[in-house]
Every structure is written in C-alpha cells, then in structure tokens.
C-alpha cells in the first residue's frame, strides 16, 4: 500500500477526534453497513424515529442467531421525504408491531444496520425502498396504474 502523507493521517485523526468527542450528527453515507450480506431480525418494534436525515426503527430482536444477538437493535433508513415516495408513511410501522426485518448489519458487528426490507407479521405486508429506483421522470404516471 502506498504510504499516506502525514497530513492525510493528521486530518483524518483530527476529524476522528472531533467526531468521537461529541455526538456527531447523522447525514451520512451507507458505507458502514455491510451491503454484501443480509441478516434477519425477528421481533417487536420498540420505537420509530421519523426524523431527518435518516429515519430509525428500534427493534427488540427475539431470536438470536450466530452473529445476530438478541436485544435492542437500531435500524436506519433514508429520509422521511424519500420514504414517503416509496410508499411509506410515519404510521405504517408502530411500536408494538411484530416484524421481520432484512438488514445490512454494521460492519463493526454491533446491533445496528441499514434496512433492506421490513415485513409486518400481522398482515404480511412488506416495505422497502431504493432511492435509485426513482431515476426517471413522471413517476406520478406509475401511481395512476
């Protein structure tokens, strides 16, 4: 690997120091999620934070699997505006709902991840989103169908 300059390391370390010292905010890339693999959580929704820039669903995972411990997980999504355009509302997932969630887990192995798909046990209804699916004009014509 090509050696990196001292300045690059210094600036990266400085950013890391600042970010680690304070609760940095949340507009971020999805790099921290392992997008090559999917884990499955089965459990009950504890909280939904319908907030910019990333909505979060807190799920109490009841069924431990290898590498997927029981307990409370926080799963992040895109912004409320982008979710609404994928058919979501802030009330489709509610605290107390039993759900199955397909998740790209945080690469550090902790109980967090990015949502791929969530299914409500009561109705079997699934919700997903992909902002790259909206790359054509006049999507309103799709809604009319």
């Amino acid at each position, binding site marked *: 690997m090509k050696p*990196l300059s001292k300045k690059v390391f210094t600036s990266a370390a400085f950013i890391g120091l600042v970010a680690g010292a304070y609760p*940095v905010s949340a*507009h971020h890339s999805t790099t921290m999620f392992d997008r090559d693999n999917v884990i499955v959580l089965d459990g009950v929704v504890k909280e939904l934070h319908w907030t*910019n820039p990333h909505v979060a669903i807190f799920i109490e995972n009841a069924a431990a699997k290898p590498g997927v411990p029981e307990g409370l997980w926080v799963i992040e999504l895109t912004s409320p505006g982008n979710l609404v355009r994928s058919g979501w509302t802030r009330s489709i997932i509610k605290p107390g709902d039993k759900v199955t969630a397909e998740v790209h887990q945080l690469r550090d192995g902790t109980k967090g991840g990015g949502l791929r798909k969530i299914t409500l046990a009561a109705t079997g209804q699934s919700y997903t989103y992909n*902002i790259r699916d909206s790359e054509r*004009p006049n*999507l309103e014509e799709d809604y009319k169908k």
Partner: protein
Amino acid sequence: MKRVLNVVGIALGVVLWCAAHAADAPKPKPVINPPPTAKDWADLSKLPDWSGVWNPKITDQDAQVKTNMPPWNAKAAELINFQLAEEKAGRPPPLFVNCLPEAMPAWMLVTHNSMEVLFTPGRVTLLGESDGNRLRRIYTDGRPHPEDPDPTFHGHSIGRWEGDTLVVDTVGVIPQALIAVSEAAGVPNNGDMHITERIRLAEKDVMHVELEITAPKVMTKPWKTTRIFFRQRARLYDIVEGVCLEGYFRPGKDKDGNDIFIPVQHAVGGNRVPPK
C-alpha cells in the same frame, strides 16, 4: 516670502472649509431592488417551464466517480484515494456528518435529495430538501458580483438567460466547501473557486446542470461534469422539510411532561450508536 505665506494660508483655509462641510456632501444613493412591474411578471411566462420537483440521477453520480474524476492536483488526489480506500474498507470518511450545508458545488454534484426552482422578477431561487432546507439565490437582474463578496456556503451567484439555458456564475464560496464526488469522498476547495453552470432541459422532463469548476488550489485545470435531474409532478414529491440537525436528537419529555429534544450519540460515520 509674504506671497508664499498668503498662498499657504489660502490653501489651509480651503482644506479646513472642506473638512467642516464634508458632512454636508450628498451621499451616494443606495442601489435598490426596484418593485417589479406588471411586465416583469408577464415576462416570466416567456421562460421555460421548470415547475415541479427535480430528483437527482444518483446512479450517474456513482458512475462518474469512475468515469469522470476531477483533475486533482497531487495532494488532493492523495486525499481522494485515501477516502475511496477507506470507503471500500467500510470505514466511511465523515464528510457531511456535521450537518453543515453540503454547499456549492456538492449540492449539485452529490445530492440524494430533491429540489425545486422558482422564478421571480430578477431572480431564480433553488430550494432543496436537506441540510436544514437549502437555498440558492441566483440574481438575474444584471447586477455584477460584489467586488469582495463575503464567503458563504453557496457563494454569490448571478445568472443570465441564453435562450432557454440559464447560465450561472458563482464566486465567493467558503474555502471549506467540498468538491465532492460522493457522500464519502471530497476535497475542500481551499479558496478562489469559480463555478459556471449551464442549466437547461435536455428533454421535456429531464434537466441537465452542466458545471465547469475552476479550483486552482486543488485542481490542475477546470473540470466539467453534467448532473441529471428528473421532473416529478406527483404530490408525493412536494418538497418537505429536511432539517439535518434533527438527527442529533430524539423526541422526548422533560420532568414536567413537555415535549423536548434529547441528544443522541452517533458513531464517527454518522449512524446512530446501537444500544449495548
């Protein structure tokens, strides 16, 4: 000698008189934004129809990381290569996690959110759905840039219409504003950046923003890139509030039952720290 003294005395008197009456000199009139006339409003109808909401082609942003990298100088290239390697390794460089505006030119280059464009007499306004409700003012009333504009996140923009193309010239962007190629890779422009944009409809419902960015502190020559936006008319696409700093907090209650914001912890990359 006496004559010389007389001349000096008269000159001194003139200087004192001028100093005493300087306050009486007429002040220059302030430059105003004139109230628009009925014709000004009517002329807006001759402009192209850019109504609706415009969402970005993110896959093209992704593709240009590989196909159209800016002509970075050696130091900037080193930083970008470091960031790209970090991203590939799953350690996201925390570029926008502070929730300051993505700023110019990153808004145009790497946004994942929608925007709308408003025409009023003498001005084009871009409103976006992130940062805390981002906004660009582009003056089309013929004014020049200020001689020494105060640096801002979006700079000072003036525009003119060439047919159906809006040509925008932007200076005065803060040096910290990133020239970003993705949400995880970008370099501060470090000052003296100049951006021109040619904004037009490439198709009836497809907008092209053709940028040329000159940033002599980080690039060896001007860089050209075109960013693509799609028109939506579904009301689902109406711009909604997007206050980035909201992500700092969770809704909660104080001891008296009032609704308040409670700070939450985030990891370096910007995601919420999972429960232990």
